[in-house]
């Protein structure tokens, strides 16, 4: 522990401490403000009714359903690819030119702005594959979001697989299991909390996403009938209601729902990470 600095250094010290608390304060102010402004408009009716007048009145039921469909579809496509990529990188290959290219591509993909994904999704999924995806639709949006969340899932899953003790793999192989059997029955279950964390963080990113979806998901306020119909997510709805109808109450209420979802996602992810760390440290000691 440090002693309290004197003189000029005291100001620097105070600035460092101040910054730390300022970050915390900013978070509390933003979340608290949205919450206080919006919570009064959140009611059972708001959650279960259809919107009227472009969302300026009425509820957000179709938007909630649309968000759930969108997230489910995105995870359904992105999770197998992302986890598969992580397994390949961690279990099936040595570091070399190909893994370097794959890692470079994944890192680059993580940094691409969402509006670029939007342009790409529009040109590729909405226009070029329009006969298959029916243009602006849940499917086009989910495919675009898949590209965006892939890096998150790959990275986190890879970390999870790395944390699985080597001894477990060796034991399984020594008992005569094939490589895939070892991965499927030993490595994946052991790393599962970490993999789930990656998927949940991916869900968080997909839920917060707006710019790319404006160009691919359509923005319809009707209850989506199939993956070939357009819909909108909560984030999109918040933006459209705030900017197009100017009804800030509805926007704040949607914001409250979004914040609650984000909080839930974060707590779940943290819980799973703790579980992974505990499980693997004890596994390593026991064996």
């Amino acid at each position: 522990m440090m002693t309290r600095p004197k003189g000029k250094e005291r100001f620097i010290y105070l600035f460092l401490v101040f910054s730390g608390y300022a970050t915390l304060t900013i978070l509390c102010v933003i979340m608290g403000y949205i919450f206080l402004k919006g919570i009064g408009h959140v009611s059972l009716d708001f959650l279960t009714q259809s919107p009227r007048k472009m969302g300026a009145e009425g509820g957000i039921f179709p938007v909630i359903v649309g968000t759930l469909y969108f997230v489910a579809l995105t995870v359904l496509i992105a999770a197998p690819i992302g986890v598969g990529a992580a397994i390949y990188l961690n279990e099936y290959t040595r570091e070399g030119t190909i893994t370097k290219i794959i890692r470079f591509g994944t890192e680059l993909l993580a940094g691409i702005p969402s509006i670029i994904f939007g342009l790409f999704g529009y040109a590729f999924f909405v226009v070029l594959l329009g006969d298959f995806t029916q243009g602006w639709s849940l499917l086009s949006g989910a495919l675009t979001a898949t590209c965006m969340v892939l890096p998150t899932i790959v990275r986190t899953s890879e970390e999870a697989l790395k944390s699985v003790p080597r001894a477990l793999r060796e034991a399984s192989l020594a008992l005569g299991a094939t490589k895939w059997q070892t991965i499927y029955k030993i490595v994946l279950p052991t790393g599962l909390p970490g993999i789930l964390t990656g998927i949940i963080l991916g869900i968080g990113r997909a839920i917060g996403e707006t710019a790319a979806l404006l160009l691919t998901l359509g923005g319809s306020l009707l209850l989506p009938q199939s993956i070939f119909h357009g819909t909108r997510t909560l984030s999109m709805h918040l933006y459209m209601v705030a900017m197009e109808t100017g009804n800030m109450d509805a926007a704040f209420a949607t914001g409250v729902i979004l914040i609650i979802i984000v909080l839930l996602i974060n707590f779940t992810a943290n819980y799973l990470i703790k579980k992974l760390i505990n499980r693997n440290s004890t596994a390593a000691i026991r064996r």
Partner: protein
Amino acid sequence: MLNKKKLNKRLVLPKAAEAIIRPILFTSALTAVFVIVLIAFFIFQKGWPVISSYGLWNMLSGTVWQPTKEIYGILPMLTGTFYITLIALLIGIPFGLATAIYLSEIAPPRTAGIIRPAIELLAAIPSVIYGLFGIVVINTFMRYLQRGLLSGILPPDYQLGYSVLSGGIVLAIMILPTIINIAEDSLKAVPRAYKEAALALGSTHIQTIFRVLIPAAKSGIVSAIVLAMGRSIGETMALIMVIGNVTALPQHGLLSVFAPSSSLTATIALEMGYAGPQHQAALFAVGIVLFCIIALLNSFVIAFTRRGGQQQL
């Protein structure tokens, strides 16, 4: 006794699975690379005709953006993007670095245990929420400032609340987690012996932090800043909501921090909704410019951190 069916299940099937699984996993791993190539291909395919016919330099230096009249000067948005990014970095870097230092060097574990999850949450909040907060709180405050204290020196169209400065402040908050997380990691990665040696030689804790730890963590801090820059250049929704989306060059020197502005990202997102084919192509051309800036920044970070990592080994 094992019958043939059971034998198959135990010996043949796993081997067959082994042969199929590997190529499937390999394809999954290549998806990211494949997507990057596709993105580059489609953005360039759609946008390049405009750049080649209009001229790259004409586009970058043109001050008028009137896509309906086929005038595609993107200098106003380019200035807007960089102006807002600059303000965001000027505010975000000192606070971000200070918080990182506080967390890694000063904070008691318990306090750090509260602030760290808060930073994670800050990173997880959707950008539309920041935008909403920006319109209602920051822009209202800005309007108050512009119409009150500064009303004498600001032209009327600079008194709307929508401004470069609002955008910069919102982005500064949004890039804090990026800066803090990466800078803290790199500060923590500095070998303990460096710190102990500096303290043993009689330097104070603050001296040790600024003369030893920060220089040693330089490569990580630089990548934190460049990544934050990439994030603020690429941010769309929060900006659309607070900057006013006026494609005009700032005219009044330093006062133009109060001017409504536009950015590359905001223009694309707003105008794609109603653009005709030629206008769309122009927006894809804007996308090319954005893609190149971001790809350049990110490649720099990836190359830089890799080299830095090897040096430390």
